[in-house]
């Protein structure tokens, strides 16, 4: 029986068509967002004008007028607000970088300990993880800072741990090598050596794939990294003079010092994040199929070698995304430095906010910088993740 041609289906009216509705909803959303933004901006401008508060980022060029407790760059009270913000940013990056390294090392060890066959060790690791994870990080920071400033001796009665290293309420003062022109070159030479060593490792790996034999790695790499720097060091007269901290009426000056604020922040953040990283590492190791370690054991490898050569490299893929978010959390938690007096970015922005009254600009700077840091770390980790991802056929 032939079906009569019914013709194309009737088109729905305009307001019923899916595409039209989609455009309409999006237009409404855009309108609502823009309307809200316009309303807030209008209010803000009115309020700022009514209270004669300045607006704009011109204040960054003005003299700051305050000192910063510690900074990696030279900062005088006559420097600009912009330089103050840069000093704060460097302080943030400093504590974040050191914190990330410390937390990763400690967290990995504890994560592995958690999975140890030694009952006592795994229980202690579990106690540490649960204890650290369930107490707020701000409380831990306050606790560490109170302990350091409460229990350590006064600067005048500092403990001399090793000759030249003094520990007191004013921090950890240690000697540094006296400034010598060769130091900048040493760093550059070490960097060049590291690059050359990386090339050597890549070449060694290619040789291993081709011939099955792997040229020695450890000693040649060490030699390549160290040789140029050592040669320069010796040739320049082996400058070993140390600038020792000496007592100057109120505290030990000279050398370099880690302030109690920095120590408390590093300890608090490092120990706190290490507990989370331990859980991430544990999850990663447990995600590797048991067959892998069983096969490795049947090949005769010791437990330690199984972990290092078989399990951890595979676990790395599972560990990396949550590890990234823990690094980001540590960086964001470093903003709590404002509560214990460490001059990081948020603390400096807070001071500037109070001195100039320009709340919006200062808070916008804080958020923009942290956003940039977060996006950078995420992008780096995503790139590395893609590089080591399993290509599944």
């Amino acid at each position, binding site marked *: 029986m032939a079906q009569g041609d019914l013709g194309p289906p009737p088109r729905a009216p305009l307001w019923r068509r899916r595409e039209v509705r989609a455009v309409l909803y*999006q237009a409404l959303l855009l309108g609502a967002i823009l309307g809200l933004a316009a309303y807030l901006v209008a209010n803000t401008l009115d309020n700022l004008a009514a209270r004669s508060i300045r607006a704009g980022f011109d204040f960054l060029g003005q003299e700051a007028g305050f000192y910063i407790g510690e900074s990696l760059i030279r900062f005088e009270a006559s420097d600009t607000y912009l330089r103050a913000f840069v000093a704060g940013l460097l302080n943030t990056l400093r504590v974040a970088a050191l914190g990330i390294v410390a937390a990763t090392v400690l967290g990995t060890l504890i994560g592995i300990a958690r999975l140890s066959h030694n009952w006592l060790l795994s229980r202690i690791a579990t106690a540490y993880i649960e204890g650290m994870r369930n107490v*707020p990080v701000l409380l831990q920071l*306050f606790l560490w800072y*109170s302990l350091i400033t409460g229990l350590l001796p006064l600067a005048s009665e500092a403990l001399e741990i090793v000759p030249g290293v003094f520990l007191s309420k004013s921090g950890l003062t240690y000697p540094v090598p006296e400034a010598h022109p060769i130091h900048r070159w040493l760093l550059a030479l070490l960097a060049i050596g590291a690059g050359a060593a990386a090339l050597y490792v890549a070449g060694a790996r290619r040789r291993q794939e081709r011939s099955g034999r792997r040229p020695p790695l450890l000693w040649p790499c060490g030699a390549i990294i160290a040789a140029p720097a050592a040669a320069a060091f010796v040739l320049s007269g082996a400058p070993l003079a140390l600038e020792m901290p000496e007592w100057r009426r109120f505290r030990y000056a000279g050398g370099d010092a880690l302030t109690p604020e920095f120590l408390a922040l590093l300890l608090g953040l490092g120990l706190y994040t290490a507990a989370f990283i331990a859980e991430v590492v544990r999850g990663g190791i447990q995600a590797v199929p048991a067959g892998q370690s069983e096969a490795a054991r049947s090949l005769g490898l010791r437990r330690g070698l199984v972990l290092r050569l078989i399990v951890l490299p595979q676990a790395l893929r599972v560990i990396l995304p949550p590890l990234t978010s823990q690094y980001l959390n540590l960086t964001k938690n470093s903003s709590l430095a404002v509560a214990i007096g460490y001059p990081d970015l*948020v603390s400096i922005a807070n001071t500037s906010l109070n001195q100039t009254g320009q709340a919006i600009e200062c*808070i916008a700077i804080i958020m923009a910088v942290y*956003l940039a840091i977060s996006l950078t770390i995420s992008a780096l980790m995503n790139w590395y993740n893609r590089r080591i991802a399993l290509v599944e056929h």
Partner: protein
Amino acid sequence: MRPLAAESGTHRPALPRVLVQARLWLWSNLFGSVGNTVLTLAAVAALAAIVPPVFTWTLSNAVWGAQPAAACAGIDGACWAFLHEKHRLILFGRYPFDEQWRPLAATALLIALLAASAIPQLWRRWLSAAWISGLLAGGALMWGGVFGLAAVPTKLWGGLPLTLMLSVVGIALAFPFALVLALGRRSTLPMFRAAAVAYIELIRGVPLISLLFMASFMLPLFLPGGVTVNELLRAQVAIALFTAAYLAEVIRGGLQGVPRGQYEAAQALGLGYWRAMAFVVLPQALRLVIPAMVNTFIGTFKDTSLVAIVSLTDLLLATRQAIADPLWRPYFLEGYVVIALIYFGFCFSMSRYSVFLERKLRTR
């Protein structure tokens, strides 16, 4: 078969089963290899160095009860008299002394509601009604002004009730917003997706402290002149907005876990987008990520301690105010240890509950 005593001069009588098992366990878990033994001995030595002094400090040498500060001077133990003196300030902040039964009742009510919500058998419709009435009752207790209770302004609220309230209301406010964000992020309409992604990435990229500063300093500027927003409300809004971004990611994970076929089948049955989401997809998605949502709640509970930086008297700031009394200042450790235990108690039980729930839901 028991060996004959006369023939078996070299046989020893068989050990009881328990001891055999104990020896086996000790061998495999603690002393199996040289490395293992060394680790065990080191751990035991560390514990021996730490545990007895902590024990004597906490219990044996401690000063208990209602003693003046002078009684604690110079002893090598904890000064629990400090807590006896200041426990009201720590737990309830600056709430008027005579009315402190009200925050106590509100806290008990909230904890009871949380405990009730933890039992899967009780996940019925009347639970939401119970929550709403519970929150209203808690609010009435804290605010007063009704039923003959004296009115207490929010700036006097503090301590544990404030911490609980900030986290519970924070998550309650964040949840609907997070749902919208998660759905928006998975939407096919580019505008919605862009808006959701922009919000989530922006909020997740900045620290909570900057949002709290923004709420404290900038919210008065955003509103028309003369309209003031309560300090507590500002912090609550900041916490809710912050939690919403993280919760949105959790819900998105759940949505990704529901097979696409479910949504397609719902469409085939004639359900529109919203009906399909509400009746088919979301119930499954949320069920998948309940443990992750509990973890988010634990995170929010800990994050409320940050309001101490914007001078809201939560549990942490109340403790610091108690320690600020010059008489009791040397005994800061006791204060911090006790509230660390309080936080630990809440968070640890919630995380244990999350593990229990995960196991229970997985075996369904």
